């Protein structure tokens, strides 16, 4: 009998496992916050968390409603500004990982957090970009976390807020950008990117989910290797930290 956990909890744990001790991580709003604090409180105590609005390495004891809530700035090593984090830290290449949520992504990990619909016709503005473009452009690698739905994993997205591998191959490098997306974590699977074509590639499927459910809820066909392992489920201690310490009010975990 395995542990009970929600898809969001598995996503947060999978995200935390991507982060290594000692890394500098620029963290976006939502699940990336939970995943980063989880990593910091487990295997990566020397990781540095950055919030784009100028918060470096906070140790919150209360939950905030967003990154502009002083609750998530508590005991920050430095409180500076957008310009400092995006300009002098990120653009100098000092950030190892950008960790972003989003509305839509495509086979090359280009990410939309700006609007849905057709910008020439009917569309709805959403919350982005904030610093998402800068983070995806300048971090050494980017982790994307979003729900696994055909309307979110699309062949072509409504708006490119944050460049991934653009049109694949070496198009990102030719555009003068370093890094690129390394992982896309959904509530059904984890994807990486094939090194040559830079196309999204299935690397693990969450326990209890079938390959058909993964592929049937996507707007494009990812590369699928002959054998796809199951994603490692969360450990009891990770679930306990998420539920009791990091997100007790379930503000991020839904």
């Amino acid at each position, binding site marked *: 009998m395995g542990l009970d956990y929600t898809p969001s909890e598995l996503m947060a744990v999978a995200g935390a496992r991507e982060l290594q001790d000692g890394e500098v991580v620029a963290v976006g709003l939502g699940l990336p916050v939970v995943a980063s604090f989880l990593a910091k409180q487990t295997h990566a105590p020397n990781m540095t968390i950055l919030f784009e609005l100028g918060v470096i390495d906070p140790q919150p004891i*209360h939950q905030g*409603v967003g990154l502009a*809530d*002083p*609750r998530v*700035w*508590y005991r920050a090593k430095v409180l500076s500004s957008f310009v400092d984090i995006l300009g002098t830290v990120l653009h100098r290449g000092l950030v190892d990982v950008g960790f972003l949520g989003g509305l839509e992504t495509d086979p090359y990990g280009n990410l939309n957090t700006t609007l849905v619909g057709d910008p020439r016709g009917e569309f709805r503005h959403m919350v982005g970009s904030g610093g998402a473009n800068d983070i995806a452009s300048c971090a050494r690698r980017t982790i994307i976390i979003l729900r696994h739905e055909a309307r979110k994993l699309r062949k072509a997205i409504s708006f490119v807020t944050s460049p991934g591998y653009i049109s694949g191959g070496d198009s990102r490098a030719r555009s003068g950008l370093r890094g690129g997306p390394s992982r896309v974590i959904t509530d059904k699977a984890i994807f990486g990117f094939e090194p040559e074509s830079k196309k999204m590639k299935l690397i693990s499927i969450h326990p209890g989910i079938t390959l058909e459910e993964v592929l049937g809820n996507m707007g494009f066909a990812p590369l699928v290797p002959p054998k796809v392992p199951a994603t490692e489920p969360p450990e009891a201690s990770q679930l306990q930290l998420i539920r009791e310490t990091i997100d007790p009010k379930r503000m991020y975990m839904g």
Partner: protein
Amino acid sequence: MVELPFGAHPTSVYRSYDYDARAIEEYVEATRTPESTRAFLDEFVYGPKDHWDYLARLGGSERLAGLRADPVLGY
């Protein structure tokens, strides 16, 4: 520069006062219909004769004291 106490209400000023979650929730609730939006604007935007009257309509010193930032936490 002149300080206007609670001039950022319902948002916060770090280390001075917290955001007023109740006021923000009430605003969101009020904007669900044109009528309730108008009533809200009349009460808190067009109605108050000055900033002090605005603060008094919120609940005055008792309400505002609850928003004062804790000096250690900053919120």
